[in-house]
């Protein structure tokens, strides 16, 4: 374990959506820590709460339906949930930056790339004129955008998918943030372009020392570039540990099932082990563990109470009644 104090501490974060159908608990008590330079994967299916967790960290949950109803988000010791919206604007883009799934929708089609990268630098660092242009060029070059000088004047539709994602990463990294949140950054990209992008992301991370939260549903990406993994299901983290720990010794039945049900390029499987049932309806969560209806290791207690988080090894924990010692902790 590291000595230094963590960059980010999230404690018992709860984000609910209040709709006519009832209260949807999109994020329901998520806690984790992240150190500088570390890469944490948030994995889960759609609706597991990974994207809402990220939006909560930067306080961009769509209001008024969505509200952060509890918890703390400490970035370098300061609670972001206590900040005013003016203060938050100085955090977003400067200390925490985001890269979203589809660069075609996250970039403005009516502004040149240079303007869009420049906007962030101008707002956060107050640069103008030649120094501003210099910083923008530097940001683009760092993500290896060829002919950055001419590309500045181009619009997003003149870029390919992979280049567009580099541009939005250049925007994100232009003010040297401490934390980069990448929400499915390669889902819209082809495999060979995905490989290029991941390679570049790792390189930039190593040189800039930025911590990354990578949201994905692809265990291949998790295995390839992350240090730690948090597996989410129905708004909670069900298992967390180092990437090796989680892959070698998956300790929550959901993680085990997920890893077994995926076809792997590396080997031919005769039959995939299915996970029965459907992902849960967040507005009608069962009282106990939400995975219980689909779980092969279901016990009577699973339907009554949500299981406590049980340590499996140093830095590795799972929330499951079947884990050894779970009942003693309850």
């Amino acid at each position, binding site marked *: 374990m590291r000595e230094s104090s963590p960059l980010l501490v999230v404690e018992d974060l709860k984000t609910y959506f209040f709709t006519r159908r009832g209260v949807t608990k999109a994020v329901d008590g998520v806690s984790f820590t992240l150190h500088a330079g570390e890469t944490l994967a948030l994995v889960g299916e759609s609706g597991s709460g990974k994207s809402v967790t990220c939006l909560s960290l930067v306080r961009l949950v769509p209001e008024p339906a969505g509200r952060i109803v509890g918890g703390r988000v400490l970035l370098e010791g300061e609670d972001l949930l206590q900040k005013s919206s003016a203060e938050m604007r100085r955090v977003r883009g400067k200390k925490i930056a985001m890269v979203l799934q589809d660069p075609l929708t996250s970039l403005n089609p009516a502004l040149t790339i240079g303007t869009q990268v420049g906007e962030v630098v101008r707002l956060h660092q107050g640069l103008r004129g030649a120094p501003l242009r210099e910083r923008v060029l530097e940001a683009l070059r760092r993500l290896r955008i060829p002919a950055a000088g001419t590309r500045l004047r181009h619009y997003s539709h003149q870029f390919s998918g992979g280049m567009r994602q580099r541009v939005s990463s250049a925007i994100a990294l232009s003010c040297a943030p401490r934390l980069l949140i990448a929400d499915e950054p390669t889902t819209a990209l082809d495999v*060979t*372009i995905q*490989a290029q992008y991941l390679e570049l992301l790792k390189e930039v991370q190593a040189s800039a020392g930025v911590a990354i939260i990578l949201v994905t549903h692809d265990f291949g990406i998790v295995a*390839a570039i992350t240090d730690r993994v948090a597996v989410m299901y129905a708004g909670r983290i069900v298992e967390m540990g180092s990437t090796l720990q989680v*892959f070698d010794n998956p300790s929550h039945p959901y993680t085990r099932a997920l*890893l077994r049900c995926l*076809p792997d390029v590396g080997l*031919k499987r005769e*039959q995939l082990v*299915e996970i029965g049932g459907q992902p849960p309806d967040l507005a009608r969560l069962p009282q106990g563990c939400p995975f219980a209806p689909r779980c092969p290791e279901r016990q009577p207690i699973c339907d009554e109470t949500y299981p406590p988080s049980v340590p499996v090894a140093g830095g590795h924990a799972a929330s499951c009644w079947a884990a050894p010692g779970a009942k003693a902790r309850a």
Partner: protein
Amino acid sequence: MKLEAIGLKKYFPLTSGFSLRGARGWVKALDGVSVQVAEGETLGIVGESGSGKTTLAKLFLLLERPTSGSLLFDGKAVGDFGREDFVRYRRAVQAVFQDPYSSLNPRMRVGQIVAEPLPRDNGMSRPMVAQRVAEVLQLVGLPRESPALYPHEFSGGQRQRIAIARALVTYPKFIILDEPVSALDVSIRAQILNLLKHLQETLGLAYMIISHDLAAARYLATRLAVMYAGKLVETGECDAVYAAPLHPYTEALLSAALPLHPSARRQRIVLAGEVPNPVNPPAGCRFHPRCPRVLPQCSSQEPEWREVKAERFTACHLY
């Protein structure tokens, strides 16, 4: 029965804005592709966006006409088809698309959706249609009361089952699967992949699975065809291709696919550059500007498509 494409080309005209003065150029979406699918086998077609996979599927489904080349069904060219041949073809070749949220009409009941491919004039009475619908819904594992419900009452995985049932209703021989699991949640993919495999075994279907997901393609395919910029670069028995790819593009594509364990992190071949512009593809081999093993002749001479080893075809100057 066999489905075969010979030298299939599809060019789309490139017109400039509102001008009506003909094409400025052509998008060569598919530029001379020959593949075949035999009864009972699964041909996996892999490649990146813009490689022509979907255009190939559209040609097989008769949704587009080829610019040149021909499509043979049971030895007969589609160009020579009469009315009856078309009916027979459409019954034998069905499709399942990527997104079951957009491929099912939200205003139709599941019973109507599934019955739609059945020809109106072949004398099937209403009870017979209802019985056939019930049969295929049972085959794909949907509840008995499904025909009366609407698509929105089903989850993503169940919707894809409805789409599969619709494809099965005409007793097809060939099903074209265009990214059948890409739009589904990870935990649901295995259910659909297993179902497809099971249906193939019990009904003797042949599949053509188009996918950018190399792992899913590998799970189902017996033979693999790799496409790049409108051309085939390699075909062969699936396991053999995965074990020892011949073409440098296949090699790079397979190495870019991420294995499911951190200890399998390995040296990846990261290709520089991007998929070429289909309007002006590079001369010679279309892959040469990105190829890590490029030879002098690659930029001028187009490599010949030939059998390099038993049952292994590729177009590359290295062999």
